[in-house]
């Protein structure tokens, strides 16, 4: 079978990729997508732990369901904010938004 370490490694890489995207991209929507990748990695973690370390305890699955729910809500709200931004300026470059500083 698949060793637990492989799955955790996959999730760490996925999370790292998401983190990299969130840190480097200037397009707000792309940043949101990267954050979703990170959340997916977390879900993989939850399920893996649930499956390997606590079989029979549904807590991991339930966490995953909650994370998905909240993620959906988060994306909806985030897109609304980005939409608002796109109406004020022509693109959604987060680096163009820096009037608050110092």
């Amino acid at each position, binding site marked *: 079978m698949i060793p637990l370490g492989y799955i955790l490694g996959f999730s760490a890489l996925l999370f790292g990729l998401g*983190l990299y995207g*969130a*840190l480097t991209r200037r397009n707000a929507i792309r940043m949101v997508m990267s954050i979703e990748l990170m959340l997916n990695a977390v879900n993989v973690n939850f399920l893996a732990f649930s499956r390997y370390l606590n079989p029979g305890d549904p807590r991991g699955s339930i966490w995953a369901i909650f994370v998905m729910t909240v993620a959906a809500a988060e994306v909806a709200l985030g897109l609304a904010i980005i939409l608002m931004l796109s109406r004020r300026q022509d693109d959604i470059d987060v*680096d163009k938004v*820096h*009037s608050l*500083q*110092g």
Partner: protein
Amino acid sequence: MAQWAWLVALFPLLAFALMEVAPGRLRLRRDTLGTVAVAASFVVSLAVLVDVWAGARAAASWQWAQVGPVQIPMGWQVDPLSAVMLVVVNLVSLMVHVFSLSYMEGDVRYGRYYAILSLFTFSMLGLLLVDNFLGLFIFWELVGLCSFVLIGHWYEEKANSNAAMKAFLTTRVGDVAMLIGILVLFAHLGTLKYGDIWSAAQSGQLSLDVITTASLLLFGGAIGKSAQFPLHVWLPDAMAGPTPVSALIHAATMVAAGVYLVARAFPLFSLSPTALYWVAVTGGFTAIFAATIAVVQDDIKKVLAYSTISQLGYMFLGLGAGSLVAGSFHLVTQAFFKSLLFLAAGSVIHAVHTQNLHEMGGLYPRMKWTAWTWMIGALSMAGIPPLAGFWSKDEVLLAAYRSPYPILFWLALVAAFLTAFYITRATWLAFFGTARDEQRARHAHESGWRMQLPLGVLALLAAGAGLLGASWFGHPFTHFIAGSVPAGTHLAEPEPAGLVQGLALLAAVAGIAVAGGIYGGGWVSRASLIRAGRPLYVLLKRKYFVDELYGWVFVKGTVALSWLTGAFDRYIVDGIVNAVGWLGVQLAYATGDFDQAVIDGAVNGVGQAVEGGGRLLRRAQTGYVSTYLVTLATAVVAVLILLVLRR
């Protein structure tokens, strides 16, 4: 009567509250309200003192709060030390209230001035009455707050509000140490009450290290509040406030709170030779340090400000030398003569509208009352018997003389000389000689009874209060004040020494004489020497019948003599006087420069460094969300890697 002592603090508090909420008509009479309240307080405090003198004590305490197993009490107590201070504070405050009726008349914030004065009086009395360190700290901050508001009374002038801020910030530096000192005691003993702490310390519950640490930290607060080196820089600036405020807060009461703190905590300090040593050294150094600066000040209030710093140094010297009496006695007499000097200076300033000594002069004929009362204060401070300052300064010098560090005695003696010197100089420049500003001098006049009465009362006390501690009456003050510390406290009350008294008097007289010589153009100068020689010359001429030869010899001899005396005068006396003067002035400028460049610079520099750091740190806040995210993630991952690698 002692059990009613809390009334003393109540009156000014009520007055303040009334002033703040009073409706229309009453609001206009805030001056009367404040004065009456302080007068009532004064009467009560007097009764309390009489009672306490007769042996009465009173205290009350209740539990204010409880933190886990630790109780925080709140309460008040009267003992000889606080009873005496209550009277002093009330009296000076009353005099300042009366004086201000005239001095502050027509001021834009006249009503507020009285309100804050009442609040200050309340806080100061509360500081004296409380029986625990937490209460002390609270009132300590409150008086600081009132001082802040009053220094900045004329805040339209930017310099004034800067001075207020400087005072507040500088004293807060000391407060940091003090609060930590209090907490150290609290953490070790679980109590804040004076009595409990004293008995715990004396019964050996605290190690010597803890006692020394706590004492020195507490002393940090005293250094700030009592403007000792190196935290003294705020006091001269605090002269930006109205002069009566300087008399009350920055001469007689609030600045004395530091001395009061050390005197109050004397049972603790006296257990630690190290702590006492540092108190004495700080005091002794500050005494001479500030005195030399006072010598060259041109602003009459600045002279008095440095003088106050110097005198407070004396008090710490006395306490540090192990004599509770010396410190507290000088505290009392200084309160009288220094507030007197400030109020007299206020009277002068009110009359001539300048604070510059070089724009005064020749005021004596027009302001005799002010001049005489000033001179009583000046002589008292210089230490001329039998005025109050003589007796208390004598105690300090004696304590220093008998202490393990006699070098401090000689320092104090030089400071005594300088004290006499600068106060005489100021006296001369202000009241005597020719008027250097005719315009101002011509319009100078006394300002009515409301300003003259306080001067008179304080002059009486500056002259007579010393008798309380005079050896002529068997040191009644010594026995009285000893009742304010627990029985086991080690009090070094040295026997009088004629040598010390003699030297002190000599220093005072010499100071007055040298100053009179230099500034008054008195007997020391060439002209007066010749005048002094002339009777001899005439006498000789009369006694020995005039012979031509003798005549010729005498004429020639006289000429030769006069040339000789002239040469002596020109080269020797002048030289010495000039050298002394020059040295003094140089020293004063040097210390003054040091004060301004180094100490002020350091204080300001720390402020600028902090602010500059703030500006630099601001740069990191670029406004780019990606910067923020990278910083955040870097921090988290870096901490993770560091922690992991450390295992």
